[in-house]
């Protein structure tokens, strides 16, 4: 649509069905694009990894690297040798296509097992954490925006800024000290009590603090962007008119302020997902949570190409799926957004 410049030529004359169709097209388009993208991203990671000074032999040996002689090092290097990065990349994908994700050098085992054992836990804290973050941030931003300039508003936004500046590690450790060590409300870490089999009930209790920690790391940006959007939306003609039609404050907020204010938030959400993964590592460290984050770090630091490729593909797919969800939500939230443009 070359001439689409300023004026919208979108149809959408009667909302609903047409937009459903647009979203479906969006999904198909993105899914198609995801294939070369995942290939490309993994290639990029292989390339970057090949540029790092660390080598997989040192990664494999870990702390033992100090006590290993040249002959042994050479044997290990020969065992790990996968050729140039593109050869390694190609051979990994050849295997992956057949269901074999290769063998991790730092974990000394099948990559698919390692990932399958960790992905669910990462997904769990990420999604629950994000939902929790919205549940905390939205009321906070609403309260702050309700009295546009009051002291409460300043206090709440200042709190969000403080939280944004508090290092995630400190927040996590603080939660652990308060809710686990001092109050004893929640267990301090792990999936369950050490040595006991993991069941839904124990996981629920053990996931509480990690999820809260992830949520707290996401609250500031949600709250602050939403607050900025809310302040703008509240001052609009539309909101004044809605109020004058006799709508109760809640309805005005729910129907006229929020829908407008969340639009930039949704646009941002997709972009924040990769961030969530980073945050997960620290949270995983603090709460001994067996997620993908630590595996990713080990893989990158130890130049474990198979594990690196596996985790990258997983995270990339997760991020792409999250992006797609965020965009679909955006299309649903703002009729002025053209799905074909996303």
């Amino acid at each position: 649509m070359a001439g689409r410049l300023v004026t919208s030529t979108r149809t959408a004359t009667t909302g609903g069905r047409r937009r459903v169709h647009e979203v479906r097209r969006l999904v198909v388009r993105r899914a198609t694009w995801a294939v070369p993208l995942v290939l490309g991203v993994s290639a990029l990671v292989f390339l970057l990894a090949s540029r790092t000074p660390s080598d997989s032999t040192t990664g494999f040996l870990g702390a033992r690297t100090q006590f290993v002689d040249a002959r042994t090092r050479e044997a290990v290097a020969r065992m790990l040798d996968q050729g140039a990065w593109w050869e390694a990349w190609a051979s990994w994908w050849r295997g992956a296509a057949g269901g074999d994700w290769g063998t991790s050098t730092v974990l000394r085992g099948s990559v698919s097992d390692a990932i399958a054992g960790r992905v669910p836990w990462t997904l769990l804290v990420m999604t629950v954490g994000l939902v929790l973050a919205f549940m905390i941030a939205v009321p906070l931003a609403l309260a702050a925006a309700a009295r546009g300039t009051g002291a409460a508003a300043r206090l709440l936004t200042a709190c969000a800024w403080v939280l944004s500046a508090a290092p995630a590690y400190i927040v996590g450790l603080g939660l652990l000290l308060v809710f686990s060590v001092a109050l004893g409300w929640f267990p301090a870490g792990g999936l369950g009590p050490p040595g006991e089999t993991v069941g839904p009930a124990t996981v629920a209790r053990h996931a509480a603090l990690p999820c809260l920690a992830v949520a707290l790391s996401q609250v500031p940006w949600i709250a602050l962007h939403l607050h900025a959007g809310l302040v703008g939306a509240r001052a609009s003609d539309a909101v004044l008119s809605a109020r004058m039609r006799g709508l109760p404050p809640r309805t005005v907020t729910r129907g006229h302020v929020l829908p407008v204010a969340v639009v930039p938030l949704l646009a941002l959400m997709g972009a924040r997902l990769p961030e969530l993964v980073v945050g997960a590592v620290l949270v995983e460290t603090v709460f001994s949570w067996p997620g993908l984050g630590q595996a990713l770090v080990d893989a990158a630091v130890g130049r474990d190409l198979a594990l690196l490729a596996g985790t990258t593909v997983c995270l990339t797919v997760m991020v792409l799926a999250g992006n797609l969800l965020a965009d679909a939500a955006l299309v649903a939230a703002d009729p002025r957004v053209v799905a074909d443009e996303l």
Partner: protein
Amino acid sequence: APGEPAPDDPAVTLRLAETSEYPSLNPLDAMFGITGKIYDGLYAVAADGTVAPDLAVGDPEPDASLTTWTVRLQDDVVFSDGSTLDAQDVAATYTTVVDPRYASPLASSFPFLVDVTAVDPTTVEFRLSEPYAAFPSTLTVGVAPAEALTGTVLDSPLNREPVGSGPYVLEQWQAGESLTLAASPTYRGEAPAVERVVVGFVLDENVRTQRLRSGDFDGAQLSPRAAQALEGVDGLTVVAHPSADYRAVTLPQSVPALADPAVRRALNLAVDREAMVEGILRGYGAPAATPFTVAQGDAFDPDVQYEHDTAQAAALLAEAGWAPGAGGVREKDGARLSFPLMYFAEDALRRDLALAVASDLAEVGVQVDVEAVDSAGAAAGMGSKAFVLGGGDQPYDPDTQVYTALHSSYAAYDPDDAYSNPSQYVQPEVDRLLDAARRSTDPDERAGMYRDVQQVLADDPPMITLVVLEHTYAARGLDGFDGVQEVVEPHEHGVAWGPWWNVETWQVAS
């Protein structure tokens, strides 16, 4: 609670927090550590800092040339899969260790092993290419069934599904979170009183501390500072074990100033080891002048020590021609007395030691520029930069403790073998003594030679050996058991060491 078997749960479970996840449970991947609970070796570390027979019966018997060693085995040993352990398995284990295709990192410990043969089901014969008196101390590799020794160390089935003859078997492994060992039903010895050992992987020290306090765990390895803070808290006690784990600053002789033994001696005098032990190790350690430690028993000469003597250090430097120059840094012929010092970025202890060394040396006019590196960086820089070295990987014979660190055959800088003789130290007398000790069968004679080495080192130090550590652990409920014993630990530490190193022999206290 730990230790006391609860009436309704007769099983005694010990829950320990490990500092990181084990990459593998393959005995050919690590010398000691947790695999020692699953596998038995021919010999095992004993409390007194020697190796004692485990699967073997009696000491290895060398021939006159010290190149053929015969070991007899117990005949009633079965693996956890029910198969019988015989000489074939031992031979296969050691053959595989040195097989380059298997790529076991332990191959470095067997530089002269040519072949291993099973003479009969209970006799194994090792043939070496050189006479090697220290050989028995290396026979601690866990023995695995011959059938399981396939592929490479990378994809071995033993990595995830260990089959050993040790007191425990792997019960469950929750990737990234914890691992549970249970008493092996097929163990030849007495069934352990501690029936289950849960090892949780808790990477962060603060978190380990908190989870220890919250009762999640019964014990963990901690830094001296963190352990000290826990002493007496919530029933926790601090356990400190002596070790062969020393820290030293290498003095690469490719740096012209460091080629002068007088300068090296001066540097050794200038560092305040007592302050390091007190300030950094919180008292858990001892000053060290050479790489020799208590783990080497008689071979260790405790009297070889440097006094902290700044004045004498300064005098030595002045004598060597290094006069105070601009900015308090000594100079000679326009060159400044300064060198870079690398440490592992993620290692807080090495960082602190590096800073303390830099601080101490600055007082005598030597400028040290500390530099944080990773292992790749360390290997690359080792030829020309000083490095905070850690030692004591295989300490149960003086040879394995010091030979590669001091012998001139390793002096040439090789990026693939950067940590051997990192100071590029060449000292013919030391070479002669080290080589002679390899050929001597008489333990007393060997010990004497090593004590002589220490005397030479005192005058011509290859590096600034700083301290030897005590490994610190916090544990609770230890008095609920009989049989808790101290051990001299190697460089390696973790919950397979500490008070739990012999957990299989513990008895519930009456």
